């Protein structure tokens, strides 16, 4: 993380108290990290595709600004929420490309090699989103872990810190969650 937890938490407290100017201080602390994540996801994209990392990050920021009225109470809440927004922007893009039949070359590069088995097309991203929602019905904390670690790029330690559990618990839960997600996707599609 580029900024300390207390720094972000203090900025979020001021934001929640109605200090809209705090966004100008918060954005630089998280922008570079969000941009790097978007770049990683889109690295295998067709060169002529219109979607760019900057556009993904801008969409996330726009959503954060639109939702300013919501209280992002601390660093953990912010990271979890931003991870969801990033995921949603990517899924929306995949859905759009699929609808327009222009998504055949859309390559999504996971942040971690452990997710390489997901493949790279837009349809898979949509399936994964549904599988994550299914997982959340059983255990919302597991979906949060996957989002934070694999979609937002938090380390095991950062994920454990944010969720206030042990690193060992995070590691074991991620092992289980990935296997569960893979089985879910395999059951949904005979080609996975």
């Amino acid at each position, binding site marked *: 993380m580029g900024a300390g937890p207390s720094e972000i938490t203090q900025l979020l407290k001021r934001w929640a108290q109605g200090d809209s100017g705090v966004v100008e201080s918060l954005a630089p602390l998280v922008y570079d990290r969000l941009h790097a994540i978007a770049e990683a996801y889109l690295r295998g994209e067709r060169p002529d595709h219109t979607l760019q990392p900057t556009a993904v990050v801008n969409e996330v920021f726009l959503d954060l600004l639109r939702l300013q009225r919501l209280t992002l109470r601390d660093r953990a809440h912010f990271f979890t929420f931003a991870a969801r927004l990033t995921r949603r922007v990517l899924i929306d893009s995949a859905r759009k490309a699929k609808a327009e039949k222009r998504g055949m070359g859309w390559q999504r590069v996971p942040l971690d*090699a452990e997710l390489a*088995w*997901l493949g790279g097309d837009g349809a898979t991203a949509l399936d994964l989103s549904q599988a994550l929602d299914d997982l959340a*019905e059983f255990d919302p904390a597991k979906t949060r872990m996957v989002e934070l670690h694999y979609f937002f790029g938090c380390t095991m330690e950062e994920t454990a810190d944010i969720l206030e559990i042990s690193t060992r618990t995070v590691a074991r839960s991620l092992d289980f969650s*990935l296997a569960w997600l*893979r*089985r879910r996707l395999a059951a949904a599609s005979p080609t996975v």
Partner: protein
Amino acid sequence: MNADERKRFRQIEGIFCAALERPPGTERDALVRAMSVGDAGLCREVELLLEDHQRIRSAARHPEAGASDSTLSRKQS
């Protein structure tokens, strides 16, 4: 989602995590069978998850091989 489904999810997770504490092979297989206490369906579900776990680990170690494995990917041609 009902209470029974959540309970089974927890059972599967508990056995899965306990099994990961043992090395792959007969010792792990025996533990899974023992913890499933005669529930063949439960035992099979855990075994399948453990197989998937091994595939994921293998794909992470050898991402190129994983990406070209038709059982792990469904890239469009």
